């Protein structure tokens, strides 16, 4: 009997192929949309982590209060000791010091007169140590557009759009004008080693990367840094672990004395996570809720479509059920066979849909979509390449509605088989 029913299922495309395609399409869209939203949100967080907050950020308490303004005069001093402590206590994290700075970049002509000039924001990172993690974190080598990576002191990288705006090429000289951490004027010449594409429009337009030691010298911050960033070795942000590390570290340094007898430990170190910095917490909560609502609405809408497909698919077959009942098949058997069919179709569609959705998401995760042209005028720190990101939830978010909604629609419509008088169902034959 089962092979007989299965044969009918395969032959009748309106019972097999079309419902399969409906489930398949719904599940593909759900899985891909979920991975896509997940990827967009992760991209925002990862970009912010790589360029700004790290997975964990160590600053002075005073610096942390004004962190948006990069107050280097409140930065960490004697970072070697702190780095040693961090590496000893948390060896599973990569620790790297950074200085964020701002100033004016002046491009002289051959006579030494200003040819072009622009305000820049800068990031000083360890470029010259052979074991520096920054190469991997910032993906500098792959981001080079022209020229090469800095190999010597006094060399910097400029954002590709900034370089174009100022008309500078690798090998050109640029003068950086700023102020030291003590407030006096600072002027230092650099050589443009290359241009880079950060993948973030706002940074491509206005950012330079310099070696940490050069900027320490330029800003009179020898042995100091604005902050020390920590990154998990797998480069993924693990909020629970970050919170745990932060809580323990902050508890240990709660009562550190400050540098001045009048302060209350303002220059003692404090750790923060992306969620606790710069109002990112509210933003991430908002994004979580918003994406949850989007996915919820989509999954419900898809479930209704699939439920409806199951419903109409069964209603359309009342005539066939009438024949089967008249021949002597039991109502229960008709009903169960209907449910079994819907489970088979739902399962096949959900498996194929999940596999295809994941494949599409995996491709987009690997290659991404370049939305840089859309962000030409943007000053937001948005990544140019948006990638999907597959999470364990991606495996079930489409599968379960695909399987259950079809089954539920069929189950509900099939109740009519029980509720109707057999002769009424039988009358469907004449319609």
């Amino acid at each position, binding site marked *: 009997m089962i092979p007989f029913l299965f044969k009918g299922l395969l032959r009748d495309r309106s019972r097999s192929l079309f419902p399969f395609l409906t489930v398949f399409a719904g599940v593909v869209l759900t899985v891909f949309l979920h991975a896509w939203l997940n990827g967009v949100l992760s991209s925002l967080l990862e970009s912010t982590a790589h360029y700004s907050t790290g997975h964990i950020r160590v600053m002075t308490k005073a610096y942390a209060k004004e962190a948006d303004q990069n107050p280097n005069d409140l930065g960490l001093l004697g970072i070697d000791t702190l780095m040693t402590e961090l590496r000893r206590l948390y060896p599973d994290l990569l620790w790297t010091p950074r200085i964020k700075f701002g100033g004016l970049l002046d491009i002289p002509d051959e006579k030494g007169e200003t040819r072009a000039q622009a305000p820049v924001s800068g990031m000083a990172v360890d470029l010259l140590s052979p074991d520096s993690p920054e190469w991997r974190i910032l993906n500098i080598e792959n981001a080079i557009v022209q020229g090469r990576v800095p190999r010597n002191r006094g060399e910097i990288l400029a954002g590709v759009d900034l370089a174009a705006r100022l008309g500078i090429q690798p090998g050109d000289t640029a003068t950086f004008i700023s102020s030291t951490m003590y407030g006096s004027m600072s002027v230092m010449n650099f050589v443009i080693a290359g241009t880079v594409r950060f993948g973030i429009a706002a940074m491509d337009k206005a950012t330079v990367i310099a070696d940490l030691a050069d900027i320490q010298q330029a800003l009179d911050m020898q042995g100091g840094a604005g902050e020390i960033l920590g990154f998990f070795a797998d480069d993924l942000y693990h909020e629970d672990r970050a919170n745990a590390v932060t809580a323990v570290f902050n508890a240990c340094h709660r009562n550190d004395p400050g540098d001045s007898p009048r302060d209350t430990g303002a220059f003692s170190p404090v750790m923060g996570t992306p969620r606790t910095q710069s109002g990112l917490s509210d933003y991430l909560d908002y994004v979580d809720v918003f994406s949850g609502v989007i996915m919820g609405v989509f999954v419900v809408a898809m479930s209704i479509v699939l439920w409806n497909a199951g419903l109409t698919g069964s209603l359309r077959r009342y005539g066939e059920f009438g024949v089967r009942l008249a021949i*002597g098949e039991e109502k229960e058997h008709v009903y169960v066979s209907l449910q079994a069919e819907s489970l088979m179709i739902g399962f096949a569609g959900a498996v194929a849909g999940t596999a295809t959705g994941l494949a599409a998401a995996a491709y987009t995760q690997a290659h991404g979509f370049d939305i840089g042209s859309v962000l030409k005028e943007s000053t937001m720190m948005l990544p140019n390449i948006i990638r999907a990101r597959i999470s364990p939830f991606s495996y079930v978010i489409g599968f379960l509605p695909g399987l259950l909604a079809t089954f539920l629609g069929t189950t509900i419509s099939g109740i009519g088989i029980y509720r109707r008088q057999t002769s009424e169902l039988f009358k469907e034959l004449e319609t």
Partner: protein
Amino acid sequence: MQNSALIKTENLEKTYSLGLTSLKAPDDVTLTVTRGEFLGLVGPSGSGKTTLLNIIGSLDAPTSGTAEVLGRRIDSLSQKEAAGLRNGHIGFIFQTFNLLPVYTVYENVEFPLLLQGVESSRRRQLVEEALEWVGLADRADSRPVQLSGGQGQRVAIARAIVKKPEIVLADEPTANLDAANSHHIMRTMVQLNEELGTTFVFATHDEKVIGYLKRKITLIDGRISKDERSDQPPLAVR
């Protein structure tokens, strides 16, 4: 055995609600059908022939009165028991054939035997035999859409008789057929009735069918107005 009652109804009524009024059809029908009869319920539309056929076939239940088929009270059967009765003892032939379109002729005829759990080789034998009976052995692999109307109805007859039921209920079996096919179908059924002893009960108002009946029960407004037996042989034999 030949004269034993297969179907017995007493004061059978089925009431339909029509807004503020109600309609009874059948209305107070008392009837006995014995084994081997070739019987027709005739009358105009709305006279209750199809409802009576449905009650006899355990597809419907009476509002009052009793209907007994093969010694079993229809109104007291559970759904499972009713399905068992249909499956084991009753074959249906419909006005619109109602073959399952995705299955071949062979598979359509095989279906009732699958429900009965008949073993594969026996199934094959019975299906081939039934198709031989209706003269469609060479169309076993065809799909219903590839058949003419007459062929389609003959497949429906093969499906009804393949399990060798005691009773075949046929509701307007020739309504969608031309005259030549109608006579062909009726001759086939007369032959089955005579050679297999199968009891046939028709609901019809088609004169072509009426000409073959050995017994004609006329229903008017739900009530039996005439119950006539024909001494003459049916048309097929004449």
